[in-house]
């Protein structure tokens, strides 16, 4: 992990309040797994960094791609960065999703809203490893759809929206495919969604990516701690460094 001023090479709005930010720098060469994140210092005006998942990596361009949604002052200010600007980034952080399934197995990606981004880089890697990928992506409404094309290129995609303006009306859990065919699932999204997915897919091997407010983002401050469910010796895990990806049985949601 390093701290680096990365260069903005692409920055555009891709959906309602949703932006794609492509950053060039050494950090792109240090990414080890999908599901890792970077810690973004938006500007001197913000005391804390913002964690944002790595949605894609381009070894050729030496870039990482972030997909972020405007949720408050920090992400709002982030939208002001222009191509050519330098952004203060610490990363890559955390342990991401394992990509250890066997060739020919079925993987199910379940993403909700701004939890979708890390699943894209994951899906690309799974497909590259010969795994069959299906995706269920939940959005609030049609205006918020992003990266549907990209996920379509990886395999079958099922869309849900809260208002039914596109795809199935409802939540991702209403649109899960036949589960018999699934060898493993990978999910990221709001905590209520993660909870429901975990219950519904009980028994299927899975990986859950969790959000928590962070201080250091590197494992030193104990801000982002979760209680572990089993008789894990430590009794806790840090989302930033032990996660953000956990096994469903590992943590209390």
């Amino acid at each position, binding site marked *: *992990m*390093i*701290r680096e001023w990365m260069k903005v090479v692409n920055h555009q709005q891709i959906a309602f309040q949703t932006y794609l930010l492509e950053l060039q720098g050494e950090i792109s060469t240090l990414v080890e797994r999908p599901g890792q994140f970077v810690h973004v*210092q938006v500007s001197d005006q*913000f*005391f*804390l*960094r913002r964690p944002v998942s790595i949605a894609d990596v381009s070894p050729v361009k030496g870039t990482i791609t972030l997909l972020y949604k405007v949720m408050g002052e920090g992400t709002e200010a982030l939208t002001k960065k222009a191509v050519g600007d330098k952004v203060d980034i*610490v990363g890559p952080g955390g342990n991401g999703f394992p990509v250890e399934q066997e060739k020919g197995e079925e993987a199910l990606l379940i993403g909700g809203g701004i939890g979708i981004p890390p699943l894209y880089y994951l899906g690309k890697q799974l497909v590259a490893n010969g795994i069959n990928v299906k995706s269920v992506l939940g959005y609030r409404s049609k205006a918020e759809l992003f990266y549907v094309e990209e996920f379509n290129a990886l395999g079958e995609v099922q869309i849900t929206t809260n208002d039914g303006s596109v795809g199935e009306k409802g939540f991702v859990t209403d649109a899960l495919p036949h589960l018999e065919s699934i060898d493993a699932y990978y999910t990221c999204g709001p905590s209520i969604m993660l909870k429901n997915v975990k219950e519904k897919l009980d028994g299927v091997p899975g990986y859950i990516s969790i959000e*928590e*407010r*962070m*201080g*250091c*983002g*590197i*494992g*030193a*401050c*104990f*801000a*982002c*701690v*979760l*209680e572990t469910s089993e008789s894990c010796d*430590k*009794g*806790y895990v840090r989302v930033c*460094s032990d996660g953000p990806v956990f096994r469903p049985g590992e943590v209390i949601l």
Partner: protein
Amino acid sequence: MTEISVRLPGLDLKNPVMPASGCFGFGKEFSQFYDLSELGAIIIKAATGAKRFGNQTPRVAETASGMLNAIGLQNPGVDGIIEHELPFLHPYNTPIIANVAGSTLEEYAEVANKLSNGSVQALELNISCPNVKEGGVQFGTDPELAYEVTQEVKKQTDLPVYVKLSPNVTDIVSLAKAVEQAGADGLSMINTLTGMRIDPRSRKPIIANQTGGLSGPAIKPIAIRMIHQVYKEVNIPIIGMGGIETADDIIEYLLAGANAVAIGSANFKNPNICKELIEQLPDALEKYGFTSVQEAVGGAHD
């Protein structure tokens, strides 16, 4: 050549810059960013008698030029720290200062006693943690209790004891004098100020514990004022902290009366901050006409 080494009771520091307790874990994570041997010293996360999980999350919130935290003294317990955390730090050429916390006099005594087995070079007595329901901060707001706990800890150890004072008091000088009389070898100033933020959407405090400790540049003027006040009234050295982000900030602390400084939440913004400030300090001292750190200490007093 600008002399940046500093001698404090029981501590020979190659420079006056150390990470503050709770903002650097037990060092491991920051060792990815630079060689920890460059640090003046390392103050590790608070140790309590038994292991503690701490408070519910969210544990941090952002504020104007600062942050709130309510970690709640999460730590593996003093035995766990000695066994599992300190061995990683021992190979580095930098003194370790252990932050001692507790809910009772007995717990403080136990933790201090166990840490005096040679694993650390000094103790920082944390009588000022605002984020735990019982203990901690009472000891830091009542001069008599502060006297008592300091005296008890001094009995348990041969290590130098730096008492970390709470700024959440009417009269910081009486606290400082009480612990000096009880035998404190130095002071650490300041811990966080108790604060709160409320989220208008949820209508609840952002921090699960409701209140948290305010740190960062927002509190620097309060820390400088308290150190300036206390410096005149005690004869023991002060480790200053609160919002330090630049080499100029360090000089402001020295002038107020600090002999060394600790960097807390700025480590989260810039994981290289301690190393960078150590590099910048000689030039900054020179710019303001000092040939050593020592020369600047207390320079704002007539």
